[in-house]
């Protein structure tokens, strides 16, 4: 299961959704794609039979200078649950309530710009790189 999430009206915040849109053109084996505005608790119900989850999101990085780094920087301390939740919470819910322990990984594109897409060519390049990486893994 590959889950891309974000608000496509808020520039680079829509990165995860744009990756999913692109991945729909790939022939990925045994893979489902979800594009969503935000992660919500009931998303767990779609993940009960899943062996591996890939989360794709834009990650806020204060000093990002639009190099469009891809990486993983999830230090999640917030344990409050609201109408939208973190990947960590999804994994915790799956484990704690449903005794499911899927493997998971998180791809993030560092940005500090949730207003517009700052450099469209580099942004698209980042989308392509993640898609290529995932398709090669698949």
């Amino acid at each position, binding site marked *: 299961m590959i889950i891309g999430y974000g608000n496509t009206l808020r520039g680079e915040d829509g990165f995860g959704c744009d990756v999913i849109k692109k991945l729909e053109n790939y022939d990925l084996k045994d893979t489902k794609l979800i594009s969503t*505005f935000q992660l919500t608790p009931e998303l767990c119900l779609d993940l009960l039979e899943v062996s591996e989850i890939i989360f794709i999101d834009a990650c806020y990085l204060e000093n990002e200078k639009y190099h469009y780094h891809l990486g993983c920087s999830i230090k999640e301390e917030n344990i*409050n649950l*609201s*109408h939208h939740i973190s990947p960590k919470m999804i994994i*915790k*819910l799956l484990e704690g*309530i449903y005794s499911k322990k899927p493997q998971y990984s998180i791809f993030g594109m560092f940005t500090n710009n949730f207003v517009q897409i700052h450099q469209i060519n580099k942004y698209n390049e980042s989308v392509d790189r993640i898609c290529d990486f995932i398709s090669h893994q698949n």
Partner: protein
Amino acid sequence: MEKKKIVISPVTRIEGHAKITIDLNEQGSVDNARIHVTQFRGFEKICEGRPYTEMPALTARTCGICPVSHAISSTKACDEILAVRPPKAGRNLRRIINLAQIIQSHALNFYHLSAPDFVYGFDAKKEDRNIFKMIQTNPEMAKDGIQLRAFGQKIIENLGGKRIHPTWIVPGGVSHAITQEQKDEILKQIPQAMDIAQRTLKYFVNNLHKFQKEIDSFGNFPSLFMGLVNKHGNLEHYDGFLRFIDSEGKVLENGIDPKFYKNYIGEAVEKDTYLKSPYYKPLGYPNGMYRVGPLARLNVADACGTPLADKEFEKFKNLNNGKPVLNSFYYHYARIIEIIYGIERIEELLNEPQTLDENIRSHANINRTKGVGCSEAPRGTLFHDYDVSNDGIITGVNLIIATGNNNLAMNAGVKQVAQTFVDGNNITDGALNRVEAIIRCFDPCLSCSTHALGIVSSNIEIRDHHKKIVNIIHRN
């Protein structure tokens, strides 16, 4: 001892950002306490200059949790501008998605935001009052919360195409009819949802005795109540008329067409919060304080109008011998009864033959330059009021958001709880948690209710009698 001020910020387990200030006197007792909404959204201004047809989608973006409610009130305002009434199928489908929204929102508040207090108590260690602990000790309850929320969200997805920010609700009706398969898909989820709702109600009622002090002091005071009722005086969430009652149950206003809301509701602005303070005009500000939302809806209604909910409604009414229930702690009780009602009503609406009718939308050009749409959102009565030019461009917007209606009452509740539980000489975490918990009773959605840029985190501030902050307690 010097006068001090306590600041709770951010207020936790609510939707949005707020802080609470508690002013202590020289003896260390609470003089006053207030909630300040510290985020500013500004949708009323953002929307000016846009075509009216964009309003349902634009205003739905106000919020990730109740976009459907905004879409409903917004499209109703647009219906007024077109001077059309949607066909029966369109109205029924709007009603169903509105109730689904209410169910999923109420489930979120009860299970995910408030339940840790009910399960572990208000004095439990703060590291235990969260969903992780719930998962460990009460996984079935946590599962029920997810399942019930999923019930509502899946209906929204089934009808609207997506769970968040669906664009299916349009001026004149809805954009497409539903099929027999879609109807059956929803209907087959009903028994499980009802089992969960009944189990939850039983759990809540069986544990009420543990919270008598909170019941007595969590926003327990006389106030007016306002809500929509249908032509029979029963619970109504989509259409109907406004009714105001006082704390004795006397009907002050009845049968008010919501489009005339400005004759009855004034909006005060206070300098320390971005949330407006609506009040009942005839009594003035601030005496015209009223409450909205689940508690108010059950107080103003003569009945729910569905069998199982009416059974529970009767017990609810007996809490105060038939008079309005004044304890804001019972917002939680009313919320569960509304979930039961919502499930029953969705089933009824789906089984009406007209619901599958393909005539789902009325079409017209602009016939009026003003439109007011009103519906009951999870947190209370929601008004969208638009002025448009002859070519349909928005020239003015006024939004009264459900949460805003409760602003005066929330503040009164925070003060009452602080005065009951906070001792300036010995400030305990349990006391501060209760100050936040009274706000959770109202289930405010602050993202929805402030219309002014930027987000400021919310804290509890303690101030002395010179208004100097002597302590800031970060709650997150």
